[in-house]
């Protein structure tokens, strides 16, 4: 048990129970998004859909990585994942990224994707705000995840024609920010 870790976080003024609950909710959001993005990705077909498939796949894999990176921190802080997968799903910090009624409507598909990423950006900003200068490890982890969620948002936003993302899709390995937590 990471006794001193928890003590340091509590002594810094962080409500550790609230923080653990938030991390569990965000971990649930990541794993459920990984699942829902799987369905979105397989339905991204045709000339327009295929063009988005690669970034949808990158976002999907990185969301799974975020789940993997969050879990150890939840346990370090004295929390645990719910025993029941359905409870875990329903506790998600973000709504389900459901397949639109018409999966050939690429704008609808992109809207689902960008909404999911925006929810994640807000969620990790919230955790970073709560932990900044207090819980350095959780902050570092959530900042790394936030960096990737911001990139995901900008990719999908760019496809929606909201403006340029300012960067290109991943070259090489996924999770350039979070990978240090996965080793």
């Amino acid at each position, binding site marked *: 048990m990471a006794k001193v870790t928890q003590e340091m976080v509590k002594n810094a003024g962080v409500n550790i129970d609230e923080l653990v609950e*938030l991390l569990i*909710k965000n971990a649930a959001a990541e794993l459920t998004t990984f699942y829902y993005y799987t369905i979105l990705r397989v339905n991204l077909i045709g000339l327009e859909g295929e063009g988005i498939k690669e970034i949808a796949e990158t976002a999907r894999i990185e969301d799974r990585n975020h789940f993997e990176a969050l879990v150890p921190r939840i346990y370090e802080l004295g929390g645990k994942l719910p025993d029941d997968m359905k409870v875990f799903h*329903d506790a998600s910090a*973000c*709504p389900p990224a459901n397949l639109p009624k018409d999966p050939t409507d690429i704008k609808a598909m992109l809207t689902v994707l960008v909404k999911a990423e925006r929810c994640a950006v*807000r969620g990790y900003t*919230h955790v970073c705000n*709560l932990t900044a200068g207090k819980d350095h490890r959780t902050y570092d982890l959530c900042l790394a995840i936030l960096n990737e969620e911001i990139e995901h948002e900008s990719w999908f936003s760019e496809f929606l024609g909201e403006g340029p993302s300012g960067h290109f899709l991943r070259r090489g390995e996924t999770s350039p920010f979070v990978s240090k937590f996965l080793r």
Partner: protein
Amino acid sequence: MDERRFTQSELGQFNGKNGARIYIAYQGSVYDVSGSFLWQNGEHQVTHFAGKDLTDELLEAPHGVEMLCRFPMVGRLKEGD
């Protein structure tokens, strides 16, 4: 139809507990967020609770107040309450 007026105490009953609807207030207006996935059980992101005036908390939220436009306004807070 007359606009419903809520005291703080009346608003507090709409806290999402035991099947109660989920209302929050912002700058005097009361909104019904019962339909939001993110307000299940009257709680939002662990740190915010329904049945309250969230004006100050919303100013610090990582989203704008335009989020409230998605939900029906169901009344106003009584002034001076």
